[in-house]
């Protein structure tokens, strides 16, 4: 059975792009020039495990992983802007909700959100950032 990582990534990235008020998104392996003083978010898709969900032949697989959205805002203006962005991401990917996505072949995937939590902020001059980690799983 082929893996579905591409569809999982697409589901999560499409959902993020649709969140109202989210600024430019820096996707993995796509050149991105950040502009000083302009907020943006950066994504990292980290698959963690792909395990048979049951014993026996041809089992369904359970995929686990983390989708990280790092919210960047200008340094020196307080944490408010990055915090607000992080809140928007947290609300959009609330734990126990599902993200549905239909690919170009017409197959629909429902990615479940296991948890969504933020980390403490940090400085990456000239930006201040707040990472939000979204744990996901899907059976396929």
């Amino acid at each position: 059975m082929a893996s579905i990582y591409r569809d999982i990534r697409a589901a999560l990235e499409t959902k993020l792009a649709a969140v109202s008020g989210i600024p430019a998104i820096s996707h993995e392996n796509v050149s991105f020039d950040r502009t000083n003083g302009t907020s943006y978010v950066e994504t990292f898709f980290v698959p963690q495990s792909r395990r048979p969900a049951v014993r026996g032949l041809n089992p369904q697989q359970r995929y686990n992983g983390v989708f990280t959205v790092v919210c960047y805002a200008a340094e020196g203006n307080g944490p408010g802007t990055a915090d607000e962005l992080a809140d928007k991401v947290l609300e959009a990917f609330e734990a126990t909700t599902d993200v549905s996505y239909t690919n170009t072949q017409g197959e629909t995937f429902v990615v479940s959100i296991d948890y969504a939590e933020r980390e403490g902020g940090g400085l990456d001059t000239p930006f201040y950032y707040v990472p939000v980690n979204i744990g996901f799983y899907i059976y396929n």
Partner: protein
Amino acid sequence: MAVPKLKVSPALKAKLAEIDEMLEDAVERKMTDVARTVVLASPVDTGAFVNSWSFKDNLGGGRSKSSDNKPRGRDKGAERGKGLNSLVNDIKKTVEVGSPGGSVREGIALQAGNYYFINRAPHAIEVERKKQIVDKIIRQHGR
């Protein structure tokens, strides 16, 4: 005196293997969380420093990339993504089968339980002195 042989039923063996796998997954998850903080806390100019992180179960060897003659002002997201991928691959390998040893060289090391995040870039100590990366990671994840 003969030592009695203990027979383990296949069902129990399978259960134990499952528990083992669950524990490995939990450790991998926690270490991946730390890895994410490690790359986000790492400054990026040539990408040599962020790509010199390794995850190991011993202090020997590890990646060491020099910034000499490398173009500066690299894409921060791309370099951090590369660094994170290397660490996630290291974590899977190390937790499941262990990591090779090697000579202990200068650099910085952060202990996380029975494992280590190591950076052997030639300029690692200088970067750490300026940016206190280890402190940032400990502040986020504890000792």
